[in-house]
């Protein structure tokens, strides 16, 4: 994955706290596990039935029956536990996952996300996306600010189908961090190597500025 995605993962990881139970979506979000801040102990929940998934094993130590929800090999971290799929999603829906980090296709003006289906294509996969969105205590979106074609992903209304009615709590891109309140998006931070103007012109929905934000 590109340096940009690593950068986003690093920025997301700063929002994790000691003891957090985290669930990381496939792709970019999984990279967040590389950048957990020094001294902060988090626990990885993976929806195929495990809490306490540990770092990627050396190739010769891969156990083909120990995988995360992205079907990547993982290891057992200290204090791990296994459980069935129904128990795993009871845990998710019941609010026992502190933070879910999700990738998105789009985010709308209210912070609602689209990350599971593309209009016009057959709908053939949803996985745990909708459960994680409604269940996690905090939902952090980890995404590049623009699509590969250079189009803004933060838009007034999603053209892709929504994953649910619940808005994300935080949206982190390589350029900016937005929080979400009931009226919509609040710009909390502009990345050091970006500018307020760039963020403003590449975010296709109105947003407010946080009181804490220093607009240069």
């Amino acid at each position, binding site marked *: 994955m590109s340096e940009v995605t690593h950068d986003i993962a690093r920025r997301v990881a700063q929002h994790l706290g000691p003891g957090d139970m985290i669930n990381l979506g496939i792709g970019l979000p999984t990279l967040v596990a590389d950048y957990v801040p020094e001294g902060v*102990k988090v626990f990885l929940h993976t929806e195929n039935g495990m809490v306490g998934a540990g770092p*990627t094993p050396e190739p010769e130590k891969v156990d083909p029956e120990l995988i995360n929800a992205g079907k990547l090999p993982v290891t057992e971290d200290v*204090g791990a536990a*296994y459980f069935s799929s129904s128990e795993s*999603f009871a845990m998710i829906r019941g609010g026992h996952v502190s933070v879910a980090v999700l990738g998105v296709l789009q985010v709308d003006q209210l912070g609602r996300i689209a990350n599971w289906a593309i209009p016009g294509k057959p709908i053939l996969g949803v996985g745990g996306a909708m459960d994680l969105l409604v269940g996690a205590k905090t939902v952090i979106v980890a995404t590049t600010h623009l699509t590969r074609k250079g189009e803004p992903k933060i838009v007034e209304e999603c053209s892709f189908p929504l994953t649910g009615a619940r808005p994300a709590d935080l949206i982190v891109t390589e350029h900016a961090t937005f929080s979400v309140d009931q009226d919509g998006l609040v710009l909390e931070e502009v990345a050091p190597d970006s500018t307020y103007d760039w963020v403003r012109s590449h975010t296709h929905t109105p947003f407010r500025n946080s009181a804490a934000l220093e607009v240069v």
Partner: protein
Amino acid sequence: MVEVPRMDGLSSGRIRSKVISVEEAVALVEPGSTVMVGGFGLVGSPLTILDALLTSENATDLTTISNNVGEPGKGLGRLLLGGRIRRAIGSYFTSNPDVMERHRSGELVTSLVPQGTLAEAIRAGGAGLGGFYTKTGVGTDLAEGREVREIDGESYLFEKPLRADIALIRARKADTLGNLTYYKTARNFNPDMATAADIVVAEVDEIVEAGALDPEHVVTPHPYVDYVVQAEIRLGKGDEPLLDRAGGG
């Protein structure tokens, strides 16, 4: 080949112990709290914390969610005699004459739920569900005024989830992270209640280091558990459940 994240950040950081004292556990219960209490009679009940609650001025006006109200004068039954319980939700109170008496005098409000519905409602509360349909109770006095729905030709009762402010449960072993295992039929409602309260306190016979429990054998994973307390009271050997103050047991 696609780059595989190393996820090295997962193995670092200091693990904080969830072990607290009985006194600290007791201080979590507030006047008017709804308290789930594990156990079938006294078996699998957090007897140490329950006894200590009698020393707290804040443990008053409680609503309990528990299969019974302990046994006469023991466990939750002792709190009942101490006038701490205002309302009891459970499935079987008949074995405790003190419940009968306080029900008659109006000091205690009781809500009776079939045992399976009680357990399922607690599970639903922990699983983020809005409710469920069960055949249990249809056509009985317990269904009076309740919503009945025909689903595929069968009648079901609608039941809502149960949650509590705090769950006081009993387990066999905890690691310092809060992973739990149980002991024989002392398991009963405890794993369900561990999922369904804002604060979950597990009283345990033995506390071990994180990593000492086999991940395949953990029954309640640690995300559910907020605090762990060392038990000081265990049931003694005998024909019927007896209390035996065994110290550090």
